Protein backbone atom coordinates (compact mmCIF):
# COMPACT_ATOMS: atom_id res chain seq x y z
CA UNK A 1 0.00 0.00 0.00
CA UNK A 2 2.61 2.45 1.08
CA UNK A 3 5.00 1.52 -1.73
CA UNK A 4 2.24 1.88 -4.32
CA UNK A 5 1.45 5.40 -3.09
CA UNK A 6 5.14 6.13 -3.15
CA UNK A 7 5.42 4.89 -6.72
CA UNK A 8 2.44 6.98 -7.84
CA UNK A 9 3.91 10.10 -6.22
CA UNK A 10 7.17 9.38 -7.95
CA UNK A 11 5.46 9.02 -11.33
CA UNK A 12 3.73 12.40 -10.90
CA UNK A 13 7.05 13.92 -9.91
CA UNK A 14 8.76 12.58 -13.01
CA UNK A 15 5.84 13.66 -15.20
CA UNK A 16 5.88 17.25 -13.92
CA UNK A 17 9.64 17.42 -14.34
CA UNK A 18 9.44 15.96 -17.84
CA UNK A 19 6.87 18.50 -19.01
CA UNK A 20 9.00 21.29 -17.54
CA UNK A 21 12.15 19.95 -19.13
CA UNK A 22 10.47 19.69 -22.54
CA UNK A 23 9.35 23.32 -22.34
CA UNK A 24 12.91 24.27 -21.41
CA UNK A 25 14.56 22.52 -24.33
CA UNK A 26 12.05 23.05 -27.16
CA UNK A 27 13.65 26.41 -28.06
CA UNK A 28 17.02 24.66 -28.39
CA UNK A 29 15.64 21.85 -30.52
CA UNK A 30 13.94 24.38 -32.75
CA UNK A 31 17.18 26.36 -33.01
CA UNK A 32 19.13 23.22 -33.86
CA UNK A 33 16.60 22.27 -36.49
CA UNK A 34 16.52 25.77 -37.98
CA UNK A 35 20.30 25.75 -38.30
CA UNK A 36 19.88 22.90 -40.82
CA UNK A 37 17.19 24.64 -42.87
CA UNK A 38 17.41 26.60 -46.07
CA UNK A 39 16.27 30.21 -45.67
CA UNK A 40 12.98 29.58 -47.51
CA UNK A 41 12.06 26.78 -45.09
CA UNK A 42 12.75 28.72 -41.89
CA UNK A 43 9.16 29.94 -41.45
CA UNK A 44 6.72 27.25 -42.47
CA UNK A 45 3.27 26.45 -41.18
CA UNK A 46 3.26 24.10 -39.36
CA UNK A 47 6.84 24.61 -38.19
CA UNK A 48 9.30 21.85 -39.07
CA UNK A 49 11.11 20.26 -36.18
CA UNK A 50 12.87 17.90 -38.55
CA UNK A 51 14.31 19.97 -41.38
CA UNK A 52 13.22 18.79 -44.82
CA UNK A 53 15.26 19.22 -46.91
CA UNK A 54 18.15 19.29 -44.42
CA UNK A 55 21.28 21.17 -45.36
CA UNK A 56 24.63 21.84 -43.74
CA UNK A 57 25.07 24.94 -45.91
CA UNK A 58 24.58 27.29 -42.92
CA UNK A 59 27.43 25.68 -41.04
CA UNK A 60 29.69 25.77 -44.07
CA UNK A 61 28.83 29.39 -44.69
CA UNK A 62 29.34 30.35 -41.05
CA UNK A 63 32.76 28.77 -40.92
CA UNK A 64 33.93 29.87 -44.35
CA UNK A 65 32.36 33.28 -44.82
CA UNK A 66 34.49 34.96 -42.21
CA UNK A 67 37.18 34.33 -39.65
CA UNK A 68 34.89 32.22 -37.55
CA UNK A 69 37.58 29.82 -36.34
CA UNK A 70 39.60 32.78 -35.16
CA UNK A 71 36.67 34.29 -33.26
CA UNK A 72 36.07 30.92 -31.68
CA UNK A 73 39.71 30.63 -30.58
CA UNK A 74 39.70 34.22 -29.31
CA UNK A 75 36.68 33.49 -27.13
CA UNK A 76 38.23 30.26 -25.89
CA UNK A 77 41.59 31.83 -25.02
CA UNK A 78 40.01 34.80 -23.28
CA UNK A 79 37.53 32.67 -21.32
CA UNK A 80 40.06 30.03 -20.22
CA UNK A 81 42.77 32.47 -19.12
CA UNK A 82 40.29 34.81 -17.44
CA UNK A 83 38.70 31.94 -15.53
CA UNK A 84 42.03 30.53 -14.34
CA UNK A 85 43.32 33.94 -13.22
CA UNK A 86 40.05 34.92 -11.60
CA UNK A 87 39.85 31.69 -9.60
CA UNK A 88 43.42 32.02 -8.37
CA UNK A 89 43.14 35.66 -7.36
CA UNK A 90 39.64 35.52 -5.90
CA UNK A 91 40.29 32.30 -3.96
CA UNK A 92 43.33 33.97 -2.37
CA UNK A 93 41.14 36.89 -1.33
CA UNK A 94 38.40 34.57 -0.13
CA UNK A 95 40.94 32.62 1.94
CA UNK A 96 42.16 35.81 3.60
CA UNK A 97 38.59 36.83 4.43
CA UNK A 98 37.70 33.36 5.71
CA UNK A 99 40.78 32.52 7.75
CA UNK A 100 42.54 35.65 8.99
CA UNK A 101 41.76 38.46 11.36
CA UNK A 102 43.04 41.77 10.18
CA UNK A 103 42.17 45.44 10.27
CA UNK A 104 39.38 46.69 8.00
CA UNK A 105 38.48 43.10 7.12
CA UNK A 106 34.71 43.54 6.94
CA UNK A 107 35.08 47.02 5.45
CA UNK A 108 37.21 45.67 2.62
CA UNK A 109 34.79 42.80 2.09
CA UNK A 110 31.84 45.19 1.86
CA UNK A 111 33.73 47.37 -0.60
CA UNK A 112 34.28 44.25 -2.71
CA UNK A 113 30.59 43.37 -2.51
CA UNK A 114 29.81 46.81 -3.89
CA UNK A 115 31.26 45.36 -7.08
CA UNK A 116 28.23 43.08 -7.29
CA UNK A 117 25.83 45.98 -7.17
CA UNK A 118 27.49 48.30 -9.63
CA UNK A 119 25.96 47.80 -13.06
CA UNK A 120 28.81 46.64 -15.29
CA UNK A 121 27.60 48.94 -18.03
CA UNK A 122 27.86 51.98 -15.79
CA UNK A 123 31.60 51.43 -15.86
CA UNK A 124 31.86 51.07 -19.61
CA UNK A 125 32.80 54.67 -20.35
CA UNK A 126 35.43 55.10 -17.59
CA UNK A 127 36.76 51.60 -18.31
CA UNK A 128 37.12 52.53 -21.94
CA UNK A 129 39.18 55.57 -20.95
CA UNK A 130 41.22 53.46 -18.53
CA UNK A 131 41.90 50.82 -21.18
CA UNK A 132 43.00 53.56 -23.54
CA UNK A 133 45.42 54.99 -20.97
CA UNK A 134 46.84 51.56 -20.15
CA UNK A 135 47.14 50.67 -23.85
CA UNK A 136 44.74 47.77 -23.39
CA UNK A 137 42.33 48.89 -26.08
CA UNK A 138 41.53 46.48 -28.88
CA UNK A 139 43.49 43.58 -27.42
CA UNK A 140 42.60 40.21 -25.93
CA UNK A 141 44.79 41.03 -22.92
CA UNK A 142 42.56 44.03 -22.27
CA UNK A 143 39.47 41.85 -22.32
CA UNK A 144 41.10 39.39 -19.90
CA UNK A 145 42.00 42.17 -17.45
CA UNK A 146 38.43 43.48 -17.34
CA UNK A 147 36.83 40.03 -17.30
CA UNK A 148 38.97 38.93 -14.33
CA UNK A 149 38.22 42.20 -12.55
CA UNK A 150 34.51 41.88 -13.21
CA UNK A 151 34.29 38.37 -11.76
CA UNK A 152 36.31 38.94 -8.58
CA UNK A 153 33.49 40.11 -6.34
CA UNK A 154 31.14 37.20 -6.99
CA UNK A 155 33.86 34.54 -6.84
CA UNK A 156 35.32 35.89 -3.62
CA UNK A 157 31.87 36.03 -2.07
CA UNK A 158 31.10 32.43 -3.12
CA UNK A 159 34.47 30.98 -2.12
CA UNK A 160 34.61 32.70 1.25
CA UNK A 161 31.53 30.73 2.23
CA UNK A 162 33.14 27.48 1.12
CA UNK A 163 36.40 28.15 2.96
CA UNK A 164 34.55 29.08 6.12
CA UNK A 165 32.72 25.79 6.14
CA UNK A 166 36.02 23.89 6.30
CA UNK A 167 36.57 22.93 9.96
CA UNK A 168 39.14 25.17 11.64
CA UNK A 169 40.61 22.08 13.34
CA UNK A 170 42.05 20.92 10.02
CA UNK A 171 43.85 24.24 9.66
CA UNK A 172 45.14 24.06 13.21
CA UNK A 173 46.43 20.52 12.66
CA UNK A 174 48.38 21.62 9.62
CA UNK A 175 49.67 24.64 11.49
CA UNK A 176 50.98 22.40 14.26
CA UNK A 177 52.82 20.47 11.57
CA UNK A 178 54.49 23.73 10.61
CA UNK A 179 52.60 24.50 7.40
CA UNK A 180 52.56 28.19 6.55
CA UNK A 181 49.52 30.10 5.35
CA UNK A 182 50.29 29.61 1.66
CA UNK A 183 50.62 25.82 2.10
CA UNK A 184 47.39 25.65 4.07
CA UNK A 185 45.64 27.60 1.34
CA UNK A 186 47.12 25.54 -1.51
CA UNK A 187 47.12 22.04 -0.02
CA UNK A 188 44.14 22.16 2.33
CA UNK A 189 41.64 24.88 1.50
CA UNK A 190 41.69 24.66 -2.30
CA UNK A 191 41.28 20.86 -2.56
CA UNK A 192 38.48 20.89 0.02
CA UNK A 193 36.69 23.71 -1.76
CA UNK A 194 36.50 21.79 -5.05
CA UNK A 195 32.71 22.08 -5.38
CA UNK A 196 33.03 25.80 -4.77
CA UNK A 197 35.81 26.11 -7.31
CA UNK A 198 33.76 24.12 -9.82
CA UNK A 199 30.81 26.43 -9.28
CA UNK A 200 33.00 29.49 -9.69
CA UNK A 201 34.60 27.96 -12.79
CA UNK A 202 31.26 27.44 -14.47
CA UNK A 203 29.98 30.91 -13.60
CA UNK A 204 33.19 32.65 -14.65
CA UNK A 205 33.76 30.71 -17.86
CA UNK A 206 30.19 31.35 -18.94
CA UNK A 207 30.33 35.02 -18.07
CA UNK A 208 33.53 35.47 -20.09
CA UNK A 209 32.41 33.32 -23.01
CA UNK A 210 29.11 35.15 -23.06
CA UNK A 211 30.34 38.70 -22.53
CA UNK A 212 29.03 41.10 -25.12
CA UNK A 213 29.10 44.72 -24.04
CA UNK A 214 32.73 45.09 -22.97
CA UNK A 215 33.93 43.19 -26.04
CA UNK A 216 31.82 45.44 -28.23
CA UNK A 217 33.23 48.58 -26.63
CA UNK A 218 36.89 47.68 -26.07
CA UNK A 219 37.73 45.82 -29.27
CA UNK A 220 37.07 46.75 -32.84
CA UNK A 221 39.49 45.05 -35.21
CA UNK A 222 38.32 41.73 -36.67
CA UNK A 223 41.34 39.83 -35.37
CA UNK A 224 40.29 40.57 -31.76
CA UNK A 225 36.62 39.79 -32.27
CA UNK A 226 34.94 37.29 -29.93
CA UNK A 227 32.04 34.96 -30.76
CA UNK A 228 29.14 36.98 -29.32
CA UNK A 229 30.18 39.94 -31.45
CA UNK A 230 30.54 37.69 -34.50
CA UNK A 231 27.06 36.25 -33.98
CA UNK A 232 25.58 39.72 -33.65
CA UNK A 233 27.27 40.69 -36.92
CA UNK A 234 25.81 37.58 -38.59
CA UNK A 235 22.34 38.62 -37.45
CA UNK A 236 22.95 42.14 -38.65
CA UNK A 237 24.08 41.05 -42.10
CA UNK A 238 21.52 40.52 -44.83
CA UNK A 239 19.51 43.53 -45.91
CA UNK A 240 16.20 43.05 -44.19
CA UNK A 241 15.59 39.40 -43.53
CA UNK A 242 17.81 37.91 -40.88
CA UNK A 243 19.45 34.70 -42.09
CA UNK A 244 18.25 32.70 -39.12
CA UNK A 245 19.82 29.47 -40.31
CA UNK A 246 23.23 31.12 -40.41
CA UNK A 247 22.80 32.85 -37.03
CA UNK A 248 21.77 29.59 -35.40
CA UNK A 249 24.50 27.54 -37.04
CA UNK A 250 27.03 29.94 -35.53
CA UNK A 251 25.12 29.83 -32.23
CA UNK A 252 25.16 26.04 -32.11
CA UNK A 253 28.92 26.05 -32.57
CA UNK A 254 29.21 28.68 -29.82
CA UNK A 255 27.21 26.54 -27.41
CA UNK A 256 29.46 23.46 -27.64
CA UNK A 257 32.29 24.61 -25.28
CA UNK A 258 29.93 25.75 -22.54
CA UNK A 259 28.14 22.44 -22.60
CA UNK A 260 31.46 20.62 -22.34
CA UNK A 261 32.58 22.79 -19.40
CA UNK A 262 29.24 22.32 -17.73
CA UNK A 263 29.19 18.55 -18.15
CA UNK A 264 32.76 18.22 -16.88
CA UNK A 265 32.22 20.30 -13.75
CA UNK A 266 28.59 19.68 -12.92
CA UNK A 267 29.22 16.50 -10.94
CA UNK A 268 31.05 18.59 -8.33
CA UNK A 269 28.34 21.13 -8.43
CA UNK A 270 25.84 19.89 -5.91
CA UNK A 271 28.12 17.48 -4.13
CA UNK A 272 28.47 17.75 -0.39
CA UNK A 273 31.40 19.92 0.54
CA UNK A 274 33.82 18.54 3.09
CA UNK A 275 32.16 15.21 3.77
CA UNK A 276 35.35 13.44 2.68
CA UNK A 277 37.49 15.43 5.05
CA UNK A 278 35.15 14.89 7.96
CA UNK A 279 35.20 11.14 7.47
CA UNK A 280 38.95 10.99 6.99
Amino acid at each position, binding site marked *: MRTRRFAAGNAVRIL*VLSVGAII*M*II*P*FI*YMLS*TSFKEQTYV*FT*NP*PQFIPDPATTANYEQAIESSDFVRYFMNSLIVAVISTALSLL*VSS*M*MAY*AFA*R*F*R*FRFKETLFR*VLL*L*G*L*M*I*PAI*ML*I*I*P*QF*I*LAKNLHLLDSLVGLI*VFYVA*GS*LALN*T*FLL*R*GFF*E*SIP*AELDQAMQVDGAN*AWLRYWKLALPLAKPGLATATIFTF*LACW*DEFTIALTLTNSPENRTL*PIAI*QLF*AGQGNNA*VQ*WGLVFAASMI*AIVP*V*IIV*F*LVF*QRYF*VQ*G*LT*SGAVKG
Partner: protein
Amino acid sequence: MSVLSTGESLSAGVAEVLSVTPAPPKKRRRRSKGRAVLAATPYLFLAPGFILFAVTVLYPTVQAFQMSFFDWKIVGSAASEFLGLDNYAKAFADDHFWLALSNSGVYMVLTVAPQIIIGLAIALLIQKKSPTQPLFRVLFYLPVVTSWVVVSFLFKFLFSDDGLINFALGDLLQITNGDTAWLADRWTALIAICALGVWKGIGWSMMIFLAALQGVPQTLVEAATMDGTNRWQRFKVVTVPAIWPALLFVTVMLVIGGFNVFVSVYLITGGGPAGRTDVLLTYMYEQAFNNLDFGYGSAIAVILTVLVFALSVVQMRVFRDRNGGGAL
Protein backbone atom coordinates in the same frame (compact mmCIF):
# COMPACT_ATOMS: atom_id res chain seq x y z
CA MET B 1 9.41 24.46 17.17
CA SER B 2 10.24 21.88 19.82
CA VAL B 3 11.65 19.72 17.06
CA LEU B 4 14.11 22.39 16.16
CA SER B 5 15.38 23.11 19.64
CA THR B 6 16.10 19.45 20.37
CA GLY B 7 17.73 18.61 17.09
CA GLU B 8 19.58 21.82 16.67
CA SER B 9 22.72 21.21 18.67
CA LEU B 10 23.13 17.73 17.21
CA SER B 11 22.89 18.73 13.61
CA ALA B 12 24.14 22.30 13.64
CA GLY B 13 27.75 21.29 13.25
CA VAL B 14 27.01 18.83 10.47
CA ALA B 15 24.80 21.32 8.72
CA GLU B 16 27.46 23.94 8.84
CA VAL B 17 30.07 21.61 7.41
CA LEU B 18 27.84 20.31 4.66
CA SER B 19 26.24 23.60 3.81
CA VAL B 20 27.47 24.74 0.45
CA THR B 21 25.69 28.04 0.55
CA PRO B 22 27.84 31.04 1.33
CA ALA B 23 27.62 31.74 5.02
CA PRO B 24 26.62 35.30 5.81
CA PRO B 25 29.59 37.31 7.05
CA LYS B 26 27.89 37.75 10.39
CA LYS B 27 28.07 34.05 11.18
CA ARG B 28 31.74 33.54 10.53
CA ARG B 29 33.73 31.30 12.81
CA ARG B 30 35.61 33.09 15.55
CA ARG B 31 39.33 32.62 15.14
CA SER B 32 41.51 32.23 18.17
CA LYS B 33 43.61 35.31 18.79
CA GLY B 34 47.34 35.60 18.89
CA ARG B 35 48.30 32.87 16.45
CA ALA B 36 51.76 33.24 15.03
CA VAL B 37 50.50 34.77 11.83
CA LEU B 38 52.60 37.47 10.26
CA ALA B 39 50.61 40.67 10.19
CA ALA B 40 51.29 41.08 6.50
CA THR B 41 50.04 37.66 5.41
CA PRO B 42 46.35 38.49 4.95
CA TYR B 43 47.24 41.58 2.97
CA LEU B 44 49.54 39.57 0.71
CA PHE B 45 46.65 37.23 -0.04
CA LEU B 46 44.40 40.20 -0.73
CA ALA B 47 46.79 42.37 -2.70
CA PRO B 48 46.66 40.97 -6.27
CA GLY B 49 42.87 40.84 -6.43
CA PHE B 50 42.14 43.98 -4.53
CA ILE B 51 44.57 46.15 -6.45
CA LEU B 52 43.08 44.95 -9.74
CA PHE B 53 39.59 45.53 -8.34
CA ALA B 54 40.49 49.03 -7.16
CA VAL B 55 41.98 50.05 -10.49
CA THR B 56 39.38 48.57 -12.83
CA VAL B 57 36.15 48.77 -10.81
CA LEU B 58 36.40 51.20 -7.89
CA TYR B 59 38.26 53.95 -9.69
CA PRO B 60 35.93 53.82 -12.74
CA THR B 61 32.97 53.91 -10.35
CA VAL B 62 34.26 57.12 -8.82
CA GLN B 63 34.94 58.46 -12.28
CA ALA B 64 31.40 57.63 -13.43
CA PHE B 65 30.05 59.64 -10.49
CA GLN B 66 32.38 62.47 -11.41
CA MET B 67 31.34 62.41 -15.07
CA SER B 68 27.68 62.63 -14.11
CA PHE B 69 28.30 66.21 -12.92
CA PHE B 70 29.80 67.31 -16.22
CA ASP B 71 28.92 67.84 -19.82
CA TRP B 72 31.64 65.29 -20.47
CA LYS B 73 33.68 65.64 -23.66
CA ILE B 74 35.24 62.38 -24.66
CA VAL B 75 36.83 63.66 -27.83
CA GLY B 76 40.31 65.14 -27.95
CA SER B 77 41.17 68.06 -25.72
CA ALA B 78 37.76 69.69 -25.48
CA ALA B 79 37.18 70.91 -21.93
CA SER B 80 34.34 69.32 -20.02
CA GLU B 81 31.92 71.78 -18.53
CA PHE B 82 30.89 71.39 -14.89
CA LEU B 83 27.11 71.21 -14.64
CA GLY B 84 26.53 70.38 -11.00
CA LEU B 85 23.28 68.49 -10.64
CA ASP B 86 21.89 69.51 -14.02
CA ASN B 87 22.15 66.00 -15.47
CA TYR B 88 20.13 64.65 -12.56
CA ALA B 89 17.54 67.38 -12.87
CA LYS B 90 17.31 66.57 -16.56
CA ALA B 91 16.72 62.89 -15.80
CA PHE B 92 13.92 63.54 -13.31
CA ALA B 93 12.21 65.86 -15.78
CA ASP B 94 12.67 63.41 -18.66
CA ASP B 95 9.56 61.36 -19.48
CA HIS B 96 11.59 58.77 -21.31
CA PHE B 97 13.77 58.27 -18.24
CA TRP B 98 10.65 57.43 -16.23
CA LEU B 99 9.39 55.11 -18.96
CA ALA B 100 12.72 53.28 -19.01
CA LEU B 101 12.77 53.11 -15.21
CA SER B 102 9.26 51.67 -15.13
CA ASN B 103 10.19 49.11 -17.79
CA SER B 104 13.19 48.08 -15.68
CA GLY B 105 10.87 47.80 -12.68
CA VAL B 106 8.35 45.74 -14.65
CA TYR B 107 11.10 43.42 -15.81
CA MET B 108 12.38 43.03 -12.25
CA VAL B 109 8.93 42.30 -10.82
CA LEU B 110 7.92 39.88 -13.58
CA THR B 111 11.16 37.89 -13.56
CA VAL B 112 12.35 37.67 -9.93
CA ALA B 113 9.35 35.97 -8.30
CA PRO B 114 8.88 33.27 -10.99
CA GLN B 115 12.57 32.45 -10.96
CA ILE B 116 12.54 31.97 -7.18
CA ILE B 117 9.25 30.06 -6.96
CA ILE B 118 9.71 27.81 -10.01
CA GLY B 119 13.41 27.36 -9.34
CA LEU B 120 12.75 26.25 -5.76
CA ALA B 121 9.86 24.01 -6.82
CA ILE B 122 12.05 22.24 -9.38
CA ALA B 123 14.88 21.92 -6.87
CA LEU B 124 12.50 20.28 -4.39
CA LEU B 125 11.18 17.88 -7.04
CA ILE B 126 14.60 17.05 -8.38
CA GLN B 127 16.60 16.77 -5.16
CA LYS B 128 15.98 13.11 -4.45
CA LYS B 129 18.83 10.98 -5.76
CA SER B 130 17.54 8.96 -8.68
CA PRO B 131 18.79 7.85 -12.10
CA THR B 132 16.86 10.69 -13.75
CA GLN B 133 18.22 13.41 -11.47
CA PRO B 134 21.40 14.32 -13.38
CA LEU B 135 19.50 14.41 -16.68
CA PHE B 136 16.83 16.79 -15.41
CA ARG B 137 19.50 18.91 -13.75
CA VAL B 138 21.32 19.32 -17.04
CA LEU B 139 18.15 20.01 -19.04
CA PHE B 140 16.92 22.73 -16.68
CA TYR B 141 20.37 24.25 -16.46
CA LEU B 142 20.98 24.32 -20.21
CA PRO B 143 19.53 27.81 -20.77
CA VAL B 144 21.76 29.20 -18.01
CA VAL B 145 24.93 28.08 -19.71
CA THR B 146 23.90 29.45 -23.08
CA SER B 147 25.15 32.87 -24.08
CA TRP B 148 22.78 35.83 -23.70
CA VAL B 149 23.51 36.81 -27.27
CA VAL B 150 22.45 33.38 -28.57
CA VAL B 151 19.26 33.13 -26.53
CA SER B 152 18.31 36.73 -27.27
CA PHE B 153 18.31 36.00 -30.99
CA LEU B 154 16.58 32.71 -30.31
CA PHE B 155 13.71 34.44 -28.51
CA LYS B 156 13.54 37.18 -31.12
CA PHE B 157 13.07 34.35 -33.60
CA LEU B 158 10.50 32.49 -31.49
CA PHE B 159 8.45 35.67 -30.94
CA SER B 160 8.67 36.87 -34.54
CA ASP B 161 5.43 37.27 -36.53
CA ASP B 162 5.67 33.80 -38.13
CA GLY B 163 7.43 32.34 -35.11
CA LEU B 164 6.86 29.30 -32.96
CA ILE B 165 5.07 31.19 -30.18
CA ASN B 166 2.38 32.49 -32.52
CA PHE B 167 1.99 29.00 -33.97
CA ALA B 168 1.72 27.43 -30.51
CA LEU B 169 -0.77 29.99 -29.15
CA GLY B 170 -2.75 30.32 -32.37
CA ASP B 171 -2.83 27.15 -34.45
CA LEU B 172 -2.07 24.70 -31.67
CA LEU B 173 -3.81 25.99 -28.53
CA GLN B 174 -6.24 28.41 -30.26
CA ILE B 175 -5.75 30.97 -27.48
CA THR B 176 -4.91 33.81 -29.86
CA ASN B 177 -5.35 34.44 -33.57
CA GLY B 178 -1.71 33.52 -33.99
CA ASP B 179 -0.90 36.86 -35.56
CA THR B 180 0.33 38.80 -32.52
CA ALA B 181 3.09 41.22 -33.49
CA TRP B 182 4.85 40.59 -30.19
CA LEU B 183 7.80 42.89 -30.68
CA ALA B 184 5.78 45.79 -32.09
CA ASP B 185 4.06 46.75 -28.85
CA ARG B 186 5.51 47.84 -25.52
CA TRP B 187 3.73 45.33 -23.31
CA THR B 188 3.87 42.24 -25.52
CA ALA B 189 7.53 42.94 -26.24
CA LEU B 190 8.19 43.22 -22.51
CA ILE B 191 6.42 39.89 -22.04
CA ALA B 192 8.73 38.29 -24.60
CA ILE B 193 11.78 39.80 -22.90
CA CYS B 194 10.59 38.73 -19.46
CA ALA B 195 9.82 35.22 -20.75
CA LEU B 196 13.42 34.98 -21.85
CA GLY B 197 14.61 36.23 -18.47
CA VAL B 198 12.59 33.63 -16.58
CA TRP B 199 13.38 30.78 -18.98
CA LYS B 200 17.10 31.51 -18.78
CA GLY B 201 17.21 32.08 -15.03
CA ILE B 202 15.19 29.21 -13.57
CA GLY B 203 18.08 26.76 -13.83
CA TRP B 204 20.38 29.10 -11.97
CA SER B 205 18.14 29.55 -8.94
CA MET B 206 17.31 25.82 -9.08
CA MET B 207 21.01 24.99 -8.84
CA ILE B 208 21.62 27.32 -5.87
CA PHE B 209 18.57 25.91 -4.08
CA LEU B 210 19.64 22.36 -4.89
CA ALA B 211 23.00 23.01 -3.26
CA ALA B 212 21.31 24.64 -0.27
CA LEU B 213 18.88 21.75 0.15
CA GLN B 214 21.85 19.45 0.70
CA GLY B 215 22.47 21.39 3.90
CA VAL B 216 19.01 20.71 5.29
CA PRO B 217 19.65 18.53 8.35
CA GLN B 218 17.98 15.17 7.66
CA THR B 219 17.76 14.40 11.39
CA LEU B 220 15.41 17.36 11.76
CA VAL B 221 13.29 16.22 8.83
CA GLU B 222 13.00 12.75 10.32
CA ALA B 223 12.25 14.09 13.79
CA ALA B 224 9.58 16.38 12.36
CA THR B 225 8.08 13.49 10.43
CA MET B 226 7.84 11.44 13.60
CA ASP B 227 6.13 14.37 15.31
CA GLY B 228 3.39 13.92 12.72
CA THR B 229 3.94 17.11 10.77
CA ASN B 230 2.80 17.23 7.17
CA ARG B 231 4.95 18.05 4.19
CA TRP B 232 4.11 21.77 4.13
CA GLN B 233 4.85 22.16 7.85
CA ARG B 234 8.20 20.43 7.43
CA PHE B 235 8.96 22.70 4.50
CA LYS B 236 8.12 25.79 6.55
CA VAL B 237 9.78 24.83 9.81
CA VAL B 238 12.82 22.85 8.66
CA THR B 239 13.60 23.53 5.00
CA VAL B 240 12.99 27.26 4.73
CA PRO B 241 15.11 28.22 7.76
CA ALA B 242 17.90 25.92 6.54
CA ILE B 243 18.01 27.47 3.07
CA TRP B 244 17.41 31.03 4.29
CA PRO B 245 20.90 32.30 3.37
CA ALA B 246 20.45 30.85 -0.12
CA LEU B 247 17.06 32.55 -0.47
CA LEU B 248 18.65 35.84 0.50
CA PHE B 249 21.50 35.33 -1.94
CA VAL B 250 19.21 34.37 -4.83
CA THR B 251 16.77 37.21 -4.21
CA VAL B 252 19.42 39.89 -3.95
CA MET B 253 21.26 38.62 -7.04
CA LEU B 254 18.06 38.38 -9.10
CA VAL B 255 16.93 41.88 -8.16
CA ILE B 256 20.34 43.26 -9.09
CA GLY B 257 20.30 41.20 -12.28
CA GLY B 258 16.79 42.38 -13.10
CA PHE B 259 17.81 46.02 -13.06
CA ASN B 260 20.94 45.17 -15.01
CA VAL B 261 19.04 43.74 -17.95
CA PHE B 262 20.60 45.10 -21.10
CA VAL B 263 21.79 42.63 -23.73
CA SER B 264 18.43 40.91 -24.25
CA VAL B 265 16.55 44.20 -24.67
CA TYR B 266 19.32 45.65 -26.82
CA LEU B 267 19.31 42.64 -29.17
CA ILE B 268 15.60 41.72 -29.21
CA THR B 269 13.91 45.11 -29.58
CA GLY B 270 16.76 47.59 -29.44
CA GLY B 271 14.47 49.54 -27.10
CA GLY B 272 11.90 49.81 -29.87
CA PRO B 273 9.26 50.38 -31.05
CA ALA B 274 10.09 54.07 -30.66
CA GLY B 275 11.94 53.48 -27.42
CA ARG B 276 8.83 52.04 -25.71
CA THR B 277 10.75 49.01 -24.42
CA ASP B 278 13.82 50.93 -23.34
CA VAL B 279 15.10 49.87 -19.93
CA LEU B 280 17.40 52.13 -17.92
CA LEU B 281 20.57 50.63 -19.33
CA THR B 282 19.55 50.69 -22.99
CA TYR B 283 18.51 54.32 -22.53
CA MET B 284 21.80 55.07 -20.80
CA TYR B 285 23.70 53.35 -23.60
CA GLU B 286 21.86 55.30 -26.23
CA GLN B 287 22.45 58.61 -24.47
CA ALA B 288 26.16 57.85 -24.10
CA PHE B 289 27.02 56.20 -27.38
CA ASN B 290 24.46 57.54 -29.85
CA ASN B 291 23.91 61.04 -28.47
CA LEU B 292 27.48 61.17 -27.12
CA ASP B 293 26.04 62.67 -23.94
CA PHE B 294 28.32 60.82 -21.53
CA GLY B 295 27.48 63.05 -18.60
CA TYR B 296 23.76 62.35 -18.89
CA GLY B 297 24.40 58.66 -19.49
CA SER B 298 26.57 58.54 -16.36
CA ALA B 299 23.86 60.29 -14.33
CA ILE B 300 21.34 57.62 -15.38
CA ALA B 301 23.84 54.90 -14.47
CA VAL B 302 24.46 56.49 -11.07
CA ILE B 303 20.73 56.72 -10.33
CA LEU B 304 20.37 53.04 -11.22
CA THR B 305 23.32 52.10 -9.01
CA VAL B 306 21.95 54.00 -6.04
CA LEU B 307 18.55 52.42 -6.57
CA VAL B 308 19.96 48.88 -6.79
CA PHE B 309 22.17 49.50 -3.78
CA ALA B 310 19.29 50.78 -1.68
CA LEU B 311 17.11 47.83 -2.70
CA SER B 312 19.85 45.35 -1.77
CA VAL B 313 20.33 46.94 1.65
CA VAL B 314 16.59 46.84 2.31
CA GLN B 315 16.39 43.19 1.29
CA MET B 316 19.30 42.18 3.50
CA ARG B 317 17.67 44.02 6.42
CA VAL B 318 14.35 42.29 5.88
CA PHE B 319 15.91 38.85 5.50
CA ARG B 320 18.17 39.31 8.52
CA ASP B 321 15.31 40.43 10.75
CA ARG B 322 13.25 37.41 9.77
CA ASN B 323 16.24 35.20 10.31
CA GLY B 324 17.03 36.68 13.71
CA GLY B 325 13.49 36.16 14.96
CA GLY B 326 13.09 32.81 13.25
CA ALA B 327 13.90 29.25 14.08
CA LEU B 328 17.54 29.11 13.14
